[in-house]
């Protein structure tokens, strides 16, 4: 171990440059890894939100992240009542969303989500304090954890959203997902806020989407198809379809990460190969000597592989630490506006380091084999 470090240190500038090359790649990998981890968190929260439900939207609506958001097209609440008559449907809850505050940069938009409270509608989102909305509630709100903090709200306190006062009855657990900045209100309250914000829309019982819960034992995918066929001018999104849409989004991000990893692989790997080939050719006599005094092929192979992997380990650790530094700096900078862009998970920390170590070890394999297979007589003759 100490020998490996001392051998690395023989050519300080060269070792430093090789390490630096990998550090850059690993730094990028760590930072993007942190972003992906945050992304996955949000997607996970989103999946909890869409699980076990069918989303119904106007046939010509735009879809976004697995949820039909209307896009200026609306359904009447009567459609929800019609859907409830479809066999296998437990409940159909009309929903209207109003933006409370636009997203700033990468922050989540604050949304008011108005729906007809139905038991089990948000069963994957835990209420940490207070209770869920119940049928018959009016002027009540359940807040996402971030929004609650922003508003300084507690259960029992009153908050004003879009000039309307609401009594806080519940605050949700932090999901790190989109719902953290959402306010859930009863449908009629939300509708009046929505109509006030959109004065040109005729005052009717309109909904942007309808959330359908199936009766237990009903195949949700089949039910989505049935509803789509039974009710005219609507389009249904089943959980499977919604997940597919979400995955498409994360795939792009994963592809970027993979791309960065490959660049790191090529640049870092090649420079390790180069460094190790030079180390081996400089030390041919030493290798000959070691073999003469009894080192086996395996011993030499391990020594050089160890040196290559050590370059990767040191570079990986440095790159990762720099990445974490950047992440914590950026997170602190955006903290004031309650935005989290990066999440640090075990994978974000250890992934790049392990990756760099294995990468460098693999890159060192060829030079190490070359060293290990040297004929001692020839190696000792070298000047």
């Amino acid at each position, binding site marked *: 171990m100490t020998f490996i470090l*001392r051998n690395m240190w023989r050519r300080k500038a060269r070792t430093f440059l090789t390490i630096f090359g990998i550090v850059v790649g690993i730094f990028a990998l760590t930072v993007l890894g942190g972003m992906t981890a945050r992304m996955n968190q949000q997607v996970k929260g989103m999946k909890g939100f869409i699980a076990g439900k069918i989303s119904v939207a106007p046939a010509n609506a735009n879809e976004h992240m697995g949820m039909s958001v209307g896009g200026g097209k609306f359904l009447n609440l009567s459609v929800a009542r019609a859907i409830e008559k479809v066999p296998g449907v437990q409940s159909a809850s009309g929903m209207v969303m109003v933006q409370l505050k636009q997203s700033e940069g990468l922050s989540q938009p604050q949304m008011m989500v108005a729906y007809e409270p139905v038991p089990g509608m948000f069963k994957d989102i835990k209420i940490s304090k207070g209770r869920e909305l119940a049928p018959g509630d009016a002027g009540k709100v359940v807040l996402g954890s971030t929004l609650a903090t922003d508003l300084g709200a507690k259960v029992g306190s009153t908050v004003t959203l879009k000039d309307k006062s609401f009594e806080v009855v519940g605050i949700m657990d932090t999901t790190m997902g989109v719902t953290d900045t959402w306010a859930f209100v009863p449908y009629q309250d939300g509708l009046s806020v929505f109509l006030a914000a959109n004065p040109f829309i005729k005052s009717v019982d309109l909904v942007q989407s309808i959330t359908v819960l199936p009766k237990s034992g009903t195949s949700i995918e089949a039910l989505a198809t049935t509803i789509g066929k039974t009710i005219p001018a609507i389009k249904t999104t089943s959980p499977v379809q919604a997940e597919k849409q979400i995955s498409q989004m994360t795939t792009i991000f994963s592809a970027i990460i993979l791309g960065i990893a490959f660049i790191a692989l090529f640049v870092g790997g090649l420079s390790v190969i180069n460094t190790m080939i030079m180390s081996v050719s400089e030390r041919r006599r*030493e290798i000959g000597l*070691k073999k003469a*005094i*009894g080192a*086996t*092929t395996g011993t030499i192979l391990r020594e050089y592989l160890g040196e290559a992997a050590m370059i990767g380990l040191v570079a990986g650790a440095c790159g990762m630490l720099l990445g974490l530094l950047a992440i914590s700096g950026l997170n602190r900078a955006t903290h004031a506006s309650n935005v989290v862009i990066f999440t640090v998970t075990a994978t974000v920390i250890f992934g790049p380091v392990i990756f760099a170590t294995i990468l460098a070890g693999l890159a060192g394999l060829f030079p190490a084999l070359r060293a290990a297979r040297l004929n001692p007589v020839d190696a000792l003759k070298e000047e």
Partner: protein
Amino acid sequence: MSIVTTSGLKKVYKVGETTINAVDGLDLAIEKGEFLSIMGPSGSGKTTLLHLLGCLDVPTSGTVTIEGKETGNLKQTALAAIRREKIGFIFQEFNLLPVLSAVENVELPLRYLKVKPAERRRRALEALEKVGLTERANNKPGQLSGGESQRVAIARALVTEPALVLADEPTGELDTTNTVRIMELLRELNEQLDLTVAIVTHDPMVAERTRRIISIRDGKVESDKAA
């Protein structure tokens, strides 16, 4: 019993169209505790013979037997084991590892023998004491003179208590004073530790300090006599 015997030992090199019989049917026996030199002009095959005796190279035909063990058909790993356990090498250019201190250089063969660190250090210091370099134990090779470096190399060769120490022109890089000192040291070690030493040299001053001189010419023994 002989430490090393060779029988009909041959090493043939091919350089382009020409075949060179570097070692050409050589029969030799080295007994325990001998202090001998192998002399010959350059190209006489003496270094090739040393490599064959030390299991660094494999013969084209004939046999090398070390402490009763025939080495001709052994695999690389087994040859490495023999070098580790039975042979100590001393080279003209010392071949010390520059990143290691004197004592760490001496420890190196013990590392390959998987001796525990504390035991390794103790034996290495003991070997350095035998060559009179205890006070230089922690110096790096770059801080040592030629004579000192070669003494560290000698300590490294004897630290494993090998059956046979092979020296290839051990004084080739040294001035006369240091040559005499190194030869005296090797002789002392031979006498005190009953160490078997074979020295390859072309320097008569070195050869005359050993007790047996084997002269080689064209890969064959020309003469073999007591000094």
